[in-house]
């Protein structure tokens, strides 16, 4: 497709529950990025992939966050045992350099 597709648009989880977010990058784009945008609008880089390989995971909280990009499947970001502080909008972006990154519409995660 010609746009980055993120599902679901909204996700509500009780504290301690698991959350799983999905991202289908633009066809042909080899890089995928995940960002977290918290209520203060600040963006935090989480992780990037080059195809199915982790490229940069310096932003990932080690204990509860994990991510995958498998061939022929949407990429996923999973949060085990969600906490209130995980409430944010999670953006996925894909890129084919040097055209720049194109963002999905985000998944709003609310932890209650």
């Amino acid at each position, binding site marked *: 497709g010609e746009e980055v597709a993120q599902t679901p648009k909204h996700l509500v989880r009780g504290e301690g529950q698991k959350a799983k977010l999905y991202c289908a990058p633009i066809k042909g784009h080899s890089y995928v990025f995940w960002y977290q945008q918290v209520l203060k*609008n600040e963006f935090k880089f989480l992780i*990037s992939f080059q195809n199915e390989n982790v*490229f940069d995971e310096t*932003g990932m909280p080690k204990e509860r966050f994990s991510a995958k990009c498998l061939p022929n499947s949407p990429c996923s970001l999973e949060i085990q045992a969600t906490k209130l502080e995980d409430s944010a*909008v999670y953006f996925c*972006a894909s890129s084919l350099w040097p055209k*720049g*990154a194109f*963002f999905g519409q985000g998944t709003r995660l609310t932890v209650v």
Partner: protein
Amino acid sequence: AQTVTQSQPEMSVQEAETVTLSCTYDTSESDYYLFWYKQPPSRQMILVIRQEAYKQQNATENRFSVNFQKAAKSFSLKISDSQLGDAAMYFCARSNMNRDDKIIFGKGTRLHILP
């Protein structure tokens, strides 16, 4: 730390007027990309304009143009003939060149358009 700084949390401009949003950044790289992204209330991130650091000519996209001062590490966005649809958060951002590196964002400037 390689940071991007937007010193104006909020700005307002009268419809049809011109407004400039400021951005400075810090990097040790000589070549890199700079971006302005627009985020309306829908939360969609829209790429407004992109500048390659090795290009001296300032990028322009219709009513949007930048003033890129490499030595000063400054990258301001000028919006001419402001329209109500320009109201949004604007994020200045930077990434390294030659590989698909992560984008580093500023904290954003909220732009209000006054009718």
